[in-house]
């Protein structure tokens, strides 16, 4: 087992899948010569050539559409967006073409395409470049959405996404690319739709995904110092959602806090709370709490930005509320 950065784990996944299947190709802004805005595609142009590692103009809707067409023609494109904030321009192709094709063709035209790139806030990128899009994309039937939090999950989920015959959204993170972690060598696949307990516990379930897994793990450490045993449940997949894992954990702990990067209104947490209140009602000892970004455009000011984001302290406070310790 090698220790890799999240960036290199994604790079490994791309390389292995491109080696494995000649139909897989990568396309996006700066993915070739520049080797990726975040160096995820380092060495790929050299290894696979310009036909399979394609630099595009700054035209998200255009190259997303080319990707959809290529997938219709039998290829397996991986479309990289420099950030998901730019992918908004391509939503017509993602939502109206990619997500609908299999359904509207009566099952005749599969859509094996991956749209990937960093999601959510980094540091001081201001309102337009600090947005978490998972509740937008996971809203759409026909799309699968994954949001890996660790290098191992990043590799395993990207490989699953590339092999999937449906459009899969892979939400990465600028602040995650340098994260190091152990990644199993060779064929490492993480199935889509399977959550993972990142830290077992008994008193409260912290449901999280992507960057908030780190937040929840820090919160769990602080809670442990207060004799509270928190279970950190990493969703990994937003759609499909591992409902069984969520319910199983809540049935054990009787209390839940849902943590996400996005805004509260119609957020991922709202979906999870809906599930818990409906299917774990008799196991609940307290109303489920949510920790989200403040319901405002992300401030540029560093102090305000920090205050707006989900933090371990906010998670600890929410956990104490569901435990009736406040």
């Amino acid at each position, binding site marked *: 087992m090698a220790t890799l950065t999240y960036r290199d784990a994604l790079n490994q996944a791309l390389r292995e899948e491109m080696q494995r299947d000649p139909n897989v190709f990568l396309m996006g802004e700066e993915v070739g010569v520049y080797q990726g805005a975040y160096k995820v595609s380092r060495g790929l142009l050299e290894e696979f050539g310009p036909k399979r590692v394609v630099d595009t103009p700054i035209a998200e809707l255009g190259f997303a559409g080319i990707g959809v067409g290529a997938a219709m023609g039998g290829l397996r494109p991986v479309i990289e967006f420099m950030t998901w904030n730019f992918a908004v321009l391509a939503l017509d192709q993602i939502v109206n073409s990619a997500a609908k094709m299999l359904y509207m063709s009566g099952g005749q035209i599969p859509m094996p395409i991956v749209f990937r790139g960093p999601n959510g806030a980094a540091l001081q990128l201001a309102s337009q470049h600090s947005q978490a899009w998972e509740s937008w994309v996971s809203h759409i039937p026909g799309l699968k959405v994954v949001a890996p939090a660790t290098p191992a999950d990043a590799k395993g989920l990207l490989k699953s996404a590339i092999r999937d015959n449906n459009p899969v959204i892979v939400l990465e993170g600028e602040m995650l690319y340098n994260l190091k972690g152990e990644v199993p060598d060779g064929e490492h696949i993480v199935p889509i739709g399977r959550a993972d307990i990142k830290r077992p516990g008994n008193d409260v379930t912290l449901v999280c995904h992507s960057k908030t897994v780190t937040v929840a793990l820090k919160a769990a450490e602080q809670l442990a110092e207060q004799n509270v045993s928190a279970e950190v449940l990493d969703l990994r997949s937003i759609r499909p959602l591992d409902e069984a894992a969520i319910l199983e954990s809540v049935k054990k702990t009787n209390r839940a806090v849902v943590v996400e990067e996005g805004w509260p209104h119609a957020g991922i947490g709202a979906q999870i709370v809906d599930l818990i209140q409906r299917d774990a009602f008799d*196991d609940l000892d307290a109303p489920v709490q949510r920790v989200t970004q403040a319901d405002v455009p992300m401030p540029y000011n560093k102090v305000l930005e920090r205050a707006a984001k989900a933090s371990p302290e906010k998670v600890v406070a929410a956990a104490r509320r569901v435990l*009736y310790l406040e």
Partner: protein
Amino acid sequence: MATKVHMEALSPTMEEGRLVKWNKHEGDAVKSGDTLAEVETDKAVMELVARSDGQLLKVLVPEGTTVPVGNIVAWIGKPGEKVDGAGSTEQGAAASKPAPTAPAPAPKAAAPAPASPPTPPAPAAAPADATRVKASPLAKRIAKEVGVDLKLVQGSGPGGRVIKRDVEGGAAQARAVAAPAPSSVLRAPSGVPYEDVPLTQIRKTIAKRLAASIGPIPHFFLTTEIDMERAAEAREALNKQLGEEGGKISFNDIIIKAVALALVQYRACNAWFQEDHIRYWNEVHVGMAVAIEDGLITPVIRNADLKSLREIGAESRELAGRARSRRLKPEEYTGATFSVSNLGMFDIDQFTAVINPPEAGIVAIGSIVAKAVPDGDRVVVRRRLRVTMSCDHRVIDGATGAAYLKTLKQMLENPLAMLL
């Protein structure tokens, strides 16, 4: 972070609780669900259960103290953790100090009773709509599984919501332990003149409810008819023996003596109601109601149980005489622990006397009259006396008063019993 231990509402009407006993002490390791302390509610003694794991860092409320529901009584946390030792401001002055028990052997003069200000009632923690129990879905399920009636469980969640930890400890809470009643003891030969016993919660409730029902002192009355034949014979014999020495024994003297001796056996009736505690007297001072020109006064036969009939007779005559001439000193008509009112000389068959506060009881003595009473299958004529005891229900319950009256009756019907 340390967690607070609150005085919980352990009964639906509980507004304050008296910390009877700490089962855990500072420094003890505690686990959620452990019984921390016994708390007397207005109904019973209940268990206060730990809501978190750790060490009992600080006990803020000493045993015997009454605190309003919601006040912090202790802290649980990690060893060495700093907590607010003085208790927060919410603790305030609301907690009443435990009443001191008997002071060290002191001169005969009774120490003044420490008057604690009445505790302002804390806002009730019970939900406004008592018919609906708020409980978390999980708590409802557990309650159903373990057979706990949620109505009997006080929720510790927001708005009194019953949550998991309440029903887990619920079985323990439901095990109500009856408050021990003060037992009657025989008169201690010497030493402490009285013992102050803090009002138990049930006593307070009785006091509040019954007082609201019939005036400041909730009276109740017990009447019995006593056969005075043997007392009359004894009196005649004694007076014959005294002969010309004078100082004849009256029925009143015999009654005072019997009342005093019976009180020694029933300390529960030899008591003062003192707002937040009951003072159970070890000494017996019998007040004797004497009609005077513009009212009545009750001179006191001190330590009547220890005095002979002659002494009682002499003292009562002397006190009554000075009472009528209004020359009693204050200390001679105050400090009775129980009183006797005798209207026998006015041909009153029976009557009810009004308690002289803070005493808890008085016996009203009617006339001794000859009556036809059944004796086996015959009817005989006997001298009979009807005695009515007025009791302060805040101190004396019906059965206690009745037991006292029965003893008094036995003593008068068999005067030799007074020698026992």
